C-alpha cells in the first residue's frame, strides 16, 4: 500500500505543470479557431511559415493608435507580402467592447484597409487565456518550426497618443526581420501595453 502511494506521489511530482504559458524559445501553444469566414484554422496548419498573432479590439484607443495612423496595416502588408501568416485575434466576449460577428470583422478589415491573413474569433477567450493575452494590441511571433520567438508589445511607446508613433521602435518588425534572416531575436519579449482584453 505504501509503495502504491509512493509511486502515485512520484508520478504526480514528476508531471509538469498542467498549463504551459507561452514561453520564448518553446513551441507556441497549439490552438484551433474559427475565422471571420467560418473557416477553421489550427496553429499546426501553418508549420513551415512564420506566424504573427495580433490581439485586437477595434474600439480600443491603443489599437486605434496603430490603425488610424496606418501603422498596423503597413506592418501587416509588409509581413504578408513576405509570406508571413498574420492572424488577428478578437477575444472580446459577446456584449463587451470589441466583440464582432464574422461579418462585422470582415467589414472592419475592409474599412480599415487591413491585411490580416485571417481574423480569428475567440469570443470565449480560450486562445486569449491560453496565451495569457492581457492587452490590445499584444503581439506574438512564431517561427517556421512553431517556436515562439517574440511576445509582448508592438513597440516601445506604451501610450495612447498617436504622436508617440514617430520614432517608436517596432519590436514586431525587428523580430520578423531576425526570424526571416535566421538570426536570434534581439528583444524577444516586452511587456504589452494597451486596453485590457475584454474577456
Amino acid at each position, binding site marked *: *500500500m505504501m509503495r502504491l502511494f509512493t509511486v502515485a506521489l512520484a*508520478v*504526480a511530482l514528476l508531471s509538469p505543470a498542467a498549463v504551459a504559458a507561452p514561453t520564448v524559445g518553446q513551441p507556441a501553444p497549439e490552438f484551433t479557431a474559427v475565422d471571420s469566414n467560418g473557416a477553421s484554422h489550427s496553429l499546426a496548419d501553418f508549420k513551415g511559415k512564420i506566424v504573427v498573432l495580433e490581439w485586437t479590439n477595434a474600439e480600443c*484607443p491603443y489599437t486605434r493608435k496603430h490603425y488610424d495612423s496606418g501603422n498596423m496595416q503597413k506592418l501587416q502588408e509588409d509581413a504578408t507580402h513576405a509570406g508571413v501568416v498574420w492572424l488577428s485575434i478578437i477575444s472580446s466576449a459577446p456584449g463587451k467592447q470589441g466583440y464582432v460577428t464574422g461579418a462585422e470583422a470582415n467589414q472592419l478589415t475592409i474599412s480599415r484597409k487591413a491585411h490580416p491573413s485571417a481574423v480569428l474569433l475567440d469570443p470565449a477567450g480560450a486562445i486569449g487565456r491560453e496565451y495569457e493575452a492581457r492587452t490590445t494590441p499584444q503581439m506574438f511571433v512564431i517561427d517556421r518550426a512553431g517556436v515562439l520567438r517574440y511576445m509582448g508589445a508592438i513597440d516601445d511607446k506604451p501610450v495612447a497618443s498617436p504622436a508617440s508613433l514617430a520614432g517608436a521602435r517596432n519590436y514586431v518588425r525587428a523580430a520578423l526581420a531576425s526570424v526571416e534572416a535566421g538570426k536570434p531575436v534581439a528583444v524577444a519579449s516586452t511587456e504589452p501595453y494597451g486596453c*485590457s482584453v475584454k474577456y
Partner: protein
Amino acid sequence: MSAILRFLLAIVSLCGLFALPASAEATHVHAELIAEQNGVSADGGTITVALHQVIEPNWHTYWRNPGDAGEPTAITWQLPPGFQAGDIQWPYPTREAVPPLLNFGYSNEVFLLTDIAVPKGLRAGDHVTLKANATWLVCEKICVPEDASLELTLPVVEIGPFPNLQWHEKIEAARRQVPLKSASFPGIFAVQDNTITLFFKPTLDRIEKGEGALFFPFEQGLIKNATQQAAVQADGGFGFRIPVGSAFRDPARANVNKIDGVLVLGLEPKRDGIKQSFEVSLTRGAVPALPVAAASGHVGAGGEAPIGLFTAIGFALLGGLILNLMPCVFPILSMKAIALVRSHHAERPWGDGVAYTLGVLATFAALAAGLMALRSAGEDIGWGFQLQSPLAVAVLAYVLVLVGLDLSGVFEIGGSIQGVGSELSSRNGLVGAFFTGVLAVIVAAPCTAPFMGAAMGFAFTQSPVVIFAVFLTLGFGLALPWLLISLSPHAVALLPKPGPWMVRFKQLLAFPMYGAAAWLIWVLSQQVTPEGLFRVMIGVVALAFAAWGLGVAQARGAEGRSRVTSFIATAIGLALAIGLVAMPFAQASTTSAAVSPASDALSGEPYSEARLADLRGQNKPVLVNLTAAWCITCLYNERVALSSKAVADAFKETNTVYLVGDWTNRNAEIARLLQAHGREGVPLYLYYPPGGEAKILPQMLDEKTVVATLKGESR
C-alpha cells in the same frame, strides 16, 4: 451606444476643446491642480502640488505600474524659470480586478503629489503660474485616454506661506499613503517551477507578521498580477508564493537580480486605518521554505471569489463526509455495515476501520496522480474522468454484480465466512477492508458532491502537494464515519448481536448492489452503441454463470467432492465475460446522445462555444447546464429543479435559451468552460444575462433559485 458616445467625447476632450484653465472636466475624471500652501515664499524653498483626480464611480486610473493593462497618469510641467518639478510621488495603489486580469490603480479619488523647487529671489506681491499637461487612461469596461491642460496661479509672499486650509489635510493624508523609503524590510526572492517566492525579514523591533500584506512591483511582467497574495510567516519574516509573470518566460529576461516595489501592510479589514507602505528592494537569493498556506489561489474567472487552502481543505472534508450519503456509495456502506457487524466480537475492530481508511486514501492518491499525469499529457479531463471510459464503467458494473452475487450467497469471496466474527483479525479481513475502501472511492468518485467542485477547482491551480492534500482530505472525510465507529468500543457495542438474521440481511443488501450496477449499465447506454451495451449485459450474465460455478465448486469442496466440472464452468463464464468487454466499444455519437435531462417541458440545445457566443452576441439570456449521465447530483437537480412547469414557463417568459453540455464522454469545449470557472467537474450551472457576466448558480439547485435567476429577481 453610450460607450461610443463617451468615447467620442473623450476624443473631443483629447483635442483640448473641453480643457479649462484651472481644472478640466474630462468625461470620467475631474482633474485639478492644488497646492498645499497658499503661496510660494519669496525666499524660495519647496511647495507640494497635487494633481487631484476625482474619478467616476467604478472607473479607475493607473499607478506607475498599471498591472496587466493600462497606462500610468503622466504630468508634463511648464514652469517659470528656476522652478523645478520632481517626480510624481505615487500613493500605493489598489488591486483593480478585471477577471481574468488585474490592474493596479486608483478608484474614486487620488492625489498625485509633486514637489516643486522654488528659486530664491522672487518678488513678493508677484504671481507665479504653474502649468501642467496631464494625460491619463481611465477604464471601467472600456478604456478612455483623457488629458487636461491645467494651471495654478499662486502669489509670492514675504511671510509664510501658510497651509492651504481647504486642501492641507487631504494632501497630508495622501502623503501618508506614499510608500516610505525604508530599509526595514530587506527582501530576497527566488524563482523555481514558474513560481516566485518573495521573502521579507523585517528589521523592526515589533513583530510584523505580514498580515494582509500586498506587494506591488514597479516593473511589469515579474509576477502574475491576478493572483491572491496571501503572506505567510516563516523564519522570522513573511513571504508570498506567486506564479511568475511573462518576463520569466523569456530566457533573456529571466535572470533579473533585483525587484523593486511597494509593500503594503495591514490591509485586512480589522486593521483598516493603520495601513503602512514601504518602498522595498528584493535581491535574488536563498529563501526559506514557506508553509503551504503560502500557495496563492488564482483570482477566479467571472469575479467569483477564489478560495484559500484551508477553506478548500475544509470543503474537501465536508465533501468527503457528504459522499457517505450519496446514493452511489450506499451499496458500499451496506458492505461496511456487514463487515462491522461481523467484527462485533473481534479483538481489534479498529484494525478494520484503519485498513478501510487506508484503502480509501490510497485510491484517492492514485486518482489524483492519474488525473495529474493525464492532464499534464494534455488531456481535457476533469473530476469524474474515471467514468468517461466505457471500459471502466463496464468493469465497475461487473465488480458491483460480483459483490451483489456474493451478498446473495451465490458464492463467497475470500473463502469461508461461516465463522462470522471469529476470523476478523485475520489478514484476510484487513485486506478485505482495504479493498472495500478502494471500491468505495471508485464508485463514489462520480458523485461530485456539492462543495467538492470548488475544492477540486482550487486544487488544480495548485502545486502537486496541495492537490494531494485536498484529495487525501476528501478521502479522509469519506472514511471518517466508519473509522470513528470502528475506533469507538461504545459505537461497536450498539450494533446488534450476530445471528441467523445476518444471512437474510446480507442477502437484502445485495439489492442496492444490483441497483448500482443497473445505474452503471444505464450510464453505459449513453456512451456506447446498443450492440456494445448488449455485449456488456451478456457479459454480466456470463459473470453470474462464473460466480455460480465457483459457488458450486465451493459447496462441493466443502463436501469433499470433485470440483473440476464447476471450475471449468467458472473459467468459461469468466473468459466470456472478460472477452465481451475487452473488445473495443464503438462510441455512441455524442450529438444524438446529448442528454435532454429535463422532461419534455424543457428541452435544451447542445452546448458549444460557438453557439453560446452567437446567442450572447444576440443579447439573449442563456442558461448553460453542464451535466453528465454518471453525475447523480446533476440528475437530481435536473429532476427536482429544472423539469417543473414553473421553470419551463420562466424560460419561455424570459426568452432564455437553455444550453446543455453533456460531459458523459470527454469534450474539450466543456472542459474549457469548466476550467474557465474554476471547476474540475460537473455539475456547473451558468446564467448569462444579456450583455452581462456569467453568474454561477449553486451546485444544489432548487426551482425557486432557477426561476428567480431567470427573472432577474435574485441578488
